[in-house]
């Protein structure tokens, strides 16, 4: 188990390096010259040149990359071109809300997806099963922004039940909790379908396995047969598949945050890209990629926890 974990961690290092390299190169290929942007519209050529030297932009590319890595290591992600705020500081204040939104979305959508997929598989071909399939197809095909806008229009605007712009405090306060409900339904809502579909397939597969027949031959109640001997085994592939969907979920978070003006990394990224604030955009991309890598790492480790055969290896 420990070896498995260390192995996975070591594998994540080159991936992280690749992400940083891509983030760095992205800055090189954008058509805008940061020195020009920084200097402002009326600056003279000398001033621009001075700023370029100041930013190290006159040095060779490989050296720039290592200088950049050095700054990163010190937590220096540059400053916003737009308002001179340090990127690291902006990221620091937006990561929390993004994590909040993620947790609030996953905490209900994954259990619901597991539940729907399991009952669909157990009563395969029944009305329940067809309803589950319909829900998951709908969940896969409805775009995040559309679901978000409908919720804002109906629940927020027409019925005025819940707030729909921005965050109103931490999750454990009543106001904060109310504010996260609609964004969390939006982002979680598009996740229920895929989870239900993957769970249904995996549980269906396990229900036909020999060990399930053994469990029934022992006289176990169906509840235990399904939970302990079907769903529990199905979790091994399902967790992997959920991990693969996390990129999709991050994309959904960007859209959800934008639609609901949720002050997270996703909205920060969109704002930065729209205003050509490259250091800021780069910072958000690094953070989102890091999140992606971390989630995959967690999934890999979970896989080891769930499957004793992997654990032993």
């Amino acid at each position: 188990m420990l070896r498995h974990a260390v192995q996975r961690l070591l594998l994540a290092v080159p991936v992280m390096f690749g992400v940083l390299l891509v983030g760095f190169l992205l800055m090189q290929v954008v058509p805008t010259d940061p020195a020009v942007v920084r200097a402002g519209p009326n600056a003279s050529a000398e001033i621009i040149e001075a700023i370029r030297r100041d930013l190290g932009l006159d040095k060779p590319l490989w050296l720039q990359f290592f200088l950049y890595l050095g700054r990163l290591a010190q937590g220096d992600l540059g400053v916003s071109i737009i308002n001179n705020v340090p990127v690291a500081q902006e990221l620091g204040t937006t990561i929390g809300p993004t994590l909040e939104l993620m947790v609030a979305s996953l905490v209900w959508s994954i259990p619901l997806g597991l539940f729907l997929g399991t009952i669909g598989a157990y009563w395969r071909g029944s009305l329940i099963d067809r309803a589950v399939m319909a829900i998951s197809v709908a969940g896969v095909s409805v775009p995040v922004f559309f679901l978000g806008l409908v919720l804002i229009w109906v629940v927020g605007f027409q019925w005025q039940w819940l707030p729909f712009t921005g965050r109103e405090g931490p999750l454990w306060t009543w106001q904060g909790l109310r504010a996260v409900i609609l964004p969390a339904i939006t982002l979680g809502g598009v996740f229920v379908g895929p989870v239900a579909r993957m769970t249904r397939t995996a549980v269906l597969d396990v229900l036909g396995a020999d060990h399930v027949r053994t469990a029934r031959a022992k006289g176990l109640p169906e509840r235990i047969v399904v939970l302990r001997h079907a769903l529990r085994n199905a979790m091994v592939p399902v967790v992997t598949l959920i991990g693969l969907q996390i990129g999709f979920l991050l994309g959904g978070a960007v859209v959800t945050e934008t639609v609901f003006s949720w002050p997270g990394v996703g909205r920060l990224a969109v704002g930065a890209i729209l205003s050509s604030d490259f250091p800021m955009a780069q910072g958000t991309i690094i953070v989102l990629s890091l999140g992606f890598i971390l989630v995959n790492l967690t999934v890999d480790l979970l896989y080891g926890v769930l499957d004793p055969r992997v654990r032993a290896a």
Partner: protein
Amino acid sequence: MTPLLEIQGLRTVFRSANGDIAAVDGVDLTVPRGRTLGIVGESGCGKSMLSLSVMRLVPPPGRVAAGRVLLEGRDLLTLSTAEMRAVRGGQVAMIFQEPMTSLNPVHPIGLQITEAMRAHDPRASAAELRDRAIAALERVRIPAPARRYDEFPHQLSGGMRQRVMIAMALACKPKLLIADEPTTALDVTVQAQILDLLRDLQQETGMSIILITHDLGVVAEMADEVAVMYAGRVAERASARDLFGSPQHPYTLGLLGSVPRLDEDRERLLAIEGAVPPPFALPQGCRFHPRCPFAIEACTKAQPPLEAIEPGHLAACIRAPVESAVELTP
């Protein structure tokens, strides 16, 4: 004394586009107390469907369509789901052919034994169940049972896993153990050990065993009574001594002919050609006639009933007893 288990007119079918297809078609069997009934037959003749029917575990789209399964006079087919659950693993337990896949790979074997016990004895404490499970592992001669208790199936060999299956099956002291090809997947030495173990455990507990196999050698060694199945029906039924001493059905003769017998110089003219017909393509009349060296015109007309040739020795063949038939064959 009533027999422990009596199967009457059992019919198990699979629903298909062309109507029901019978995998088990009118089987009558009796399992005496404390004895072993061997069921033999080639692959696909319905042995597993028969045993799963007794457990009411026939996988859909299959179902038991007719018949009675009387356990000490109580028809299992009419029990409620909850009552049947109490029977499974309680009075009737079952072990399967594939020890590799019959245990759940993600749970330690200790849990898989104790959950069977808990299902039938919900009030037992965790510590008590643990002790009982370790004792059960010890009874099936698993070395270092306390350590094995926390191990996972992949850490055990095939033979050890089958022992765990047996320990699990016997956890609640069933009156009947159904063993569906328990040793087919194991190599020969392990096979012999498992059979020895089953025999010893039967002696200790007095349980009855239904032993399903396509290995006549295993039946000869283990069974008191034998039923030979062919294409979903019983072809011949007798005590092991009578069946091997004076087989009456041409199919049995064929099966015996396909066992190499060095002690006899009888010619092996009786080895059977062809394969068991699938349940959706059964021939008219006697189901064995396309492969039967003794077949005559009348065999293609009507299905011969299972009839007593001598007391306690039944065969479903219009030409039985075959001593005379052998002479009749040109």
